């Protein structure tokens, strides 16, 4: 507009300036009243004080942020990150002494590991030439690289521990009993995947520690019955160091470049993928099996019902 009709722009302010005693002006045919602008600015500023009333906030969260039961319920149910939670839980179920929080902490550690792991992947090449140098580079040159690597390793150790403690708690509270039998089995798979994740990560720095740990670990695969070349009935069935299960794991007969690449792919893609799938099932089943198991009311011996076959 302004470029097309420069004359209009010039004329109108001068006209309205003379004609209006309030100081209101007209720009591009719009009347401008300073008082009104001030008022509108105040409204916007008031809005800043109460961000939950703004359209932006409402479009994102859609639920009022207040203490009514309805808002609290909807706040959980309408949030994709929180929707695995129920809206309400048994008042005793939030007690720390029952769950120890170990399952949730394990899941949180999995996220920490995913984030730090992805960041580490930016700096790491799974090749014999570069792997070890990349670690040195991370430790000495990358900003916060050492912190990143330390955090990844310690979170992994912590996760192995918390997953085991989670299993211990679930056992001691009898939470695997009907109707949660299947979810316990899924949890055992997740425990195994956790250990495998940690183990495959061990080789990646390509240092003596990882190399010999993985050598010791995979040497056991030689001895697999039937499928290993040193296992019972393995040689009889034609197993050699070049076609047995250890060869499949390492991509060769020794821990070398192929083993490094395979460990990398298992560690960064395949096992996290499987773990994610099993975790989805695990959390879904927690809800579908009726939420966390307790603290449940105590059952007495005389109340045991006969088995139905």
């Amino acid at each position, binding site marked *: 507009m302004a470029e097309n009709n420069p004359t209009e722009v010039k004329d109108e302010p001068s006209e309205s300036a003379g004609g209006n005693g309030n100081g209101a002006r007209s720009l591009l045919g719009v009347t401008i009243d300073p008082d009104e602008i001030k008022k509108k600015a105040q409204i916007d500023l008031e809005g800043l004080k109460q961000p939950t009333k703004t359209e932006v906030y409402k479009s994102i969260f859609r639920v009022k942020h207040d203490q009514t039961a309805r808002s609290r319920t909807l706040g959980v149910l309408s949030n994709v990150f929180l929707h695995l939670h129920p809206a309400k839980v048994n008042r005793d179920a939030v007690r720390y002494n029952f769950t120890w929080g170990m399952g949730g902490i394990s899941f949180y550690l999995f996220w920490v590991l995913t984030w730090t792991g992805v960041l580490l992947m930016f700096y790491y090449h799974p090749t014999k030439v570069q792997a070890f140098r990349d670690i040195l580079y991370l430790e000495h040159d990358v900003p916060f690289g050492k912190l990143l690597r330390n955090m990844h390793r310690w979170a992994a150790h912590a996760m192995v521990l918390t997953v085991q403690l989670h299993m211990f708690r679930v056992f001691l509270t009898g939470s695997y009993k*009907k109707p949660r039998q299947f979810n316990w089995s899924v949890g055992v798979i997740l425990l195994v995947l956790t250990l495998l994740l940690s183990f495959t990560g061990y080789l990646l720095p390509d240092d003596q520690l990882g190399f010999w740990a993985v050598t010791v670990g995979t040497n056991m695969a030689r001895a697999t019955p039937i499928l290993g070349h040193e296992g019972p009935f393995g040689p009889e069935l034609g197993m050699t160091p070049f076609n047995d299960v250890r060869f499949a794991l390492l991509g060769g007969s020794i821990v070398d470049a192929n083993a490094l690449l395979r460990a990398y792919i298992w560690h960064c893609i395949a096992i996290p993928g499987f773990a994610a799938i099993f975790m989805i099932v695990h959390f879904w089943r927690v809800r579908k099996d009726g939420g966390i198991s307790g603290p449940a009311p105590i059952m007495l011996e005389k109340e045991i019902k006969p088995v139905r076959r």
Partner: protein
Amino acid sequence: MDWHQLWTIVSLPDNIPIVGMLFIIPFFTWYALRQARANDRLVERLENDPDMAKTHHRKVQPFKKGWVREVAVWPYLLRMEFLAAIIVTIILMVWSITLDAPLEEPANPSLTMNPSKAPWYFLGLQEMLVYFDPWIAGVVMPTLIIIGLIVIPYIDANPLGNGYYTYKQRRFAIWAFIFGFIILWCSMIVIGTLIRGPGWMWFWPGMTWDHNRLIFEINRDLHEIVGITSQPWIGIFGGLVVGGFMVVAGYACHRIITATEFSRKILGRMSLLQYAIMQGLLIIMLALPVKMAARLLFRIKYVWVTPWFNV
């Protein structure tokens, strides 16, 4: 007493989880059993007082009239999860700033690490290699541990103790799990980390890791002690010994399973398949400490030698 050696092992950054485990596992065991005892006392009171059992809400924490039975997840649960995440983050940050992840020399296939140890959570399995051949310790046992854990819910026929800590209502299950998890799994990890030194030799805490140490001990097979020298008698003898162990262990397990009236009642609820699987897993679990004792106390290497495999 070589304190320096002890400190070298304990302060190794990768060994922090095990040192932590030494405190964390007993703490949580105590924490769980304390709650179990409180619940067991309540069970006793409710069993002695049927009227109370009708009205009591059956939890140790007293429920007061007027309280809501359920609380909103937001904020009462989510704030705890958020707090837990913050605490874990702080712990991780401090841990990562103060202790560096280990990095040894570049991988070198011609220079063997001594001792060369698996990651700490597999040291139980590596320790098992002392007592069994790799196909048992490295393949069969781990597989059975996984399968055994998976089938636990399907062989536990005791409906009591579902969703609360208890000891008296689940004595056998609790003992079996604590035996497998703490006495075997955790303590073998601790042995593998803190006790085993160069050459995978046994070094008591405080002993110097002497790389030139030699232990002159002759491990013999059981049939050599008995004096059987030729196959197939060696194989037959070993098979009989292993079979005999299974019968004895199975009988012992059966005695334990049927020790009380309550446990007999639970046994009555089990199908034959459930019972057979449970017995099989228990016998194999017991085989580990028996073989450990045979090896550590009597220096017996194999009890069953055949042309194809040795046990």
